[in-house]
């Protein structure tokens, strides 16, 4: 049974999703969702344990040999991302059990959980697979379910945001499909390892370069790289809070993982960095993302929107790390990916607690929050400190390594950009902290903390982030090992 874990953590949510639909009562679907997501957490931790020592797991679907059969290949990076996705998925499911009363009709609960499980399955499948078309299929599974999830609160703005997200996401996925077709045309196989061994023979052909270009544009839409980020603020703001948290921590990160996999294993560093010189495009765009998105975040009045722009900026850091074209840059990206997923999801969930108690996440509602909801405020402050990069949070470690990688590669402008991003983050986080700490008028502020069932997932994710900040050696060695392997 243990040997089938890679396929089980993908298939089980996929199969249980329609089962959720069979039952009318919301309790059963909540229970099923919790059990399945917990299973995924356990399964991915198990995979992490195996791959930690360096083994790569190859699993053949249906015992058909690759490259004719579909193969699942999990290395350390895959196991790491799978763990992050499952833990965040589990936290969001637990959160949504109590929260959904607020935004989702009880009678639609079973559909909500079916979609959430489908999304989780799609994401895990994207991570596990070694076949490019299988990747596309799972990409679409996760994307479609996330479009529906964004619209699940049925508010008008959510519907519009979901529509925009759908258009943007479908265009992106279609570009990826086109690039998959071109790669198949040039190499005759769909297996990633096979393609990477055959590609060097044909890599000067225009088709390969076109495949690279289409893939990049498609994935950039999914990763919300500037300037293809326009769908993200709407989607994250108007989705229900557990979904914002889930999407913020997983979908873009998994797309980034696909980016890394394609650039470093499939196309190879030769092609990507030496021939196409891709870092000259991705680097400036990432820098622009960091600065412009952070600046936009400062002017928002809706805190969820502010966090969405902050996410775009933080994704800019990750792509900046990749575009440094060095091992240090790549490992810094991986560290940033890990700690940001936990911190951002925790922040969205903490805001969810605020929305649950106070109705909305506008700046006005935050006044005096420190008095009314002290534990939630503490969570928001800790998450904010991680965004800025204060020591003892995960954000400090990743900022340190990003700046070090930039300095080591003599990319001083990138180092300045990273530092500037931190200072801008200080401004928009400081605004929230200030509001929470000072009360506006003399109205009596009642202590009305959110229930424990909502607090627990927040602190679970925050503790993961702080753990990375105080005991960073494990994630650093993991990131270094992965970067060595990929270069």
């Amino acid at each position, binding site marked *: 049974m243990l040997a089938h874990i890679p396929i089980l953590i993908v298939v089980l949510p996929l199969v249980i999703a329609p089962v959720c639909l069979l039952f009318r009562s919301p309790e059963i679907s909540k229970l099923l969702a919790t059990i399945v997501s917990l299973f995924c957490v356990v399964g991915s931790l198990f995979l992490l344990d195996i791959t930690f020592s360096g083994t790569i797991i190859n699993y053949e679907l249906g015992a058909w040999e690759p490259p004719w059969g579909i193969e699942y290949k999990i290395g350390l990076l895959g196991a790491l991302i799978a763990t992050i996705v499952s833990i965040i998925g589990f936290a969001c499911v637990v959160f949504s059990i109590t929260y959904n009363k607020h935004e989702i009709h009880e009678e639609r609960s079973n559909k909500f959980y079916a979609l959430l499980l489908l999304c989780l399955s799609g994401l895990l499948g994207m991570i596990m697979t070694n076949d490019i*078309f299988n990747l*596309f*299929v799972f990409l*679409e599974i996760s994307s*479609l379910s996330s*479009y*529906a999830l964004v*619209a699940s609160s*049925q508010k*008008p*703005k959510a*519907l*519009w945001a*979901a*529509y925009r997200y*759908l*258009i943007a996401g*479908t*265009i992106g996925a*279609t570009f990826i*499909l*086109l690039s*998959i*077709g071109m790669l*198949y*045309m040039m190499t005759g196989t*769909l297996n990633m390892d096979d393609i990477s061994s055959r590609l060097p023979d044909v890599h000067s052909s225009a088709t390969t370069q076109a495949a690279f270009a289409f893939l990049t544009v498609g994935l950039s839409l999914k990763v919300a790289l500037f300037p293809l980020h*326009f769908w993200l603020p*709407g989607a994250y703001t108007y989705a229900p809070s557990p979904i914002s948290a889930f999407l913020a921590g997983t979908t873009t990160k998994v797309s980034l993982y696909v980016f890394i996999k394609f650039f470093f294993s499939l196309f190879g560093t030769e092609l990507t960095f030496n021939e196409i010189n891709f870092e000259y495009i991705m680097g400036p765009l990432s820098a622009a993302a960091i600065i412009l998105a952070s600046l936009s975040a400062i002017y928002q009045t*809706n805190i969820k*929107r502010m966090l969405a722009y902050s996410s775009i900026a933080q994704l800019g850091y990750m792509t900046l790390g990749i575009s440094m074209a060095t091992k240090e840059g790549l490992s810094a990206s991986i560290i940033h990916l890990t700690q940001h997923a936990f911190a951002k999801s925790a922040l969205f969930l903490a805001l969810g607690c605020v929305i649950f108690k106070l109705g909305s996440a506008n700046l006005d509602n935050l006044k005096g929050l420190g008095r009314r909801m002290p534990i939630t405020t503490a969570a928001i402050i800790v998450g904010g400190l991680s965004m800025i990069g204060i020591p003892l949070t995960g954000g400090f470690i990743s900022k340190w390594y990003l700046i070090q990688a930039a300095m080591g590669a003599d990319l001083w402008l990138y180092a300045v950009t990273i530092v500037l991003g931190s200072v801008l983050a200080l401004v928009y986080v400081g605004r929230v902290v200030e509001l929470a700490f000072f009360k506006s008028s003399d109205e009596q502020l009642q202590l009305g903390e959110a229930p424990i069932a909502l607090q627990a997932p927040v602190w679970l994710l925050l503790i993961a982030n702080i753990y990375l900040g105080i005991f960073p050696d494990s994630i650093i060695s993991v990131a270094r090992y992965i970067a060595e392997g990929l270069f």
Partner: protein
Amino acid sequence: MQIFNIASEINYYWGVIILMMIGFYIVIGHSNLIKKLVGLSIFQSAIFIFFILMSKVDGGTAPILAEEYNIYSNPLPHVLILTAIVVSIATTSLALALVVRIREEFKTIDEKAILEINDDEF
């Protein structure tokens, strides 16, 4: 017969490009939500045609094993496209459901009008 000779000389990949760009333009250029979906559909169809085009092997016959033939067209892209078509159907139906709901909530399906109502988007 003449027409088949001419037909086999054309580079159909140009058709793919043209269709793709038409579809893409419609998505961006039109403000009616349904028309955008039509454009998206055309865009996706262009990609499907691309895959099908590449699967034809010169001198190949239909991919059914038979003794007299030894060159077959490639069936794999057809399989891939079937999957992709199913995905595209799901996407279109989800999008149409969204449009129906948007019409209910906003009373319009024109993008410009909706952006005016939602003044915080750009």
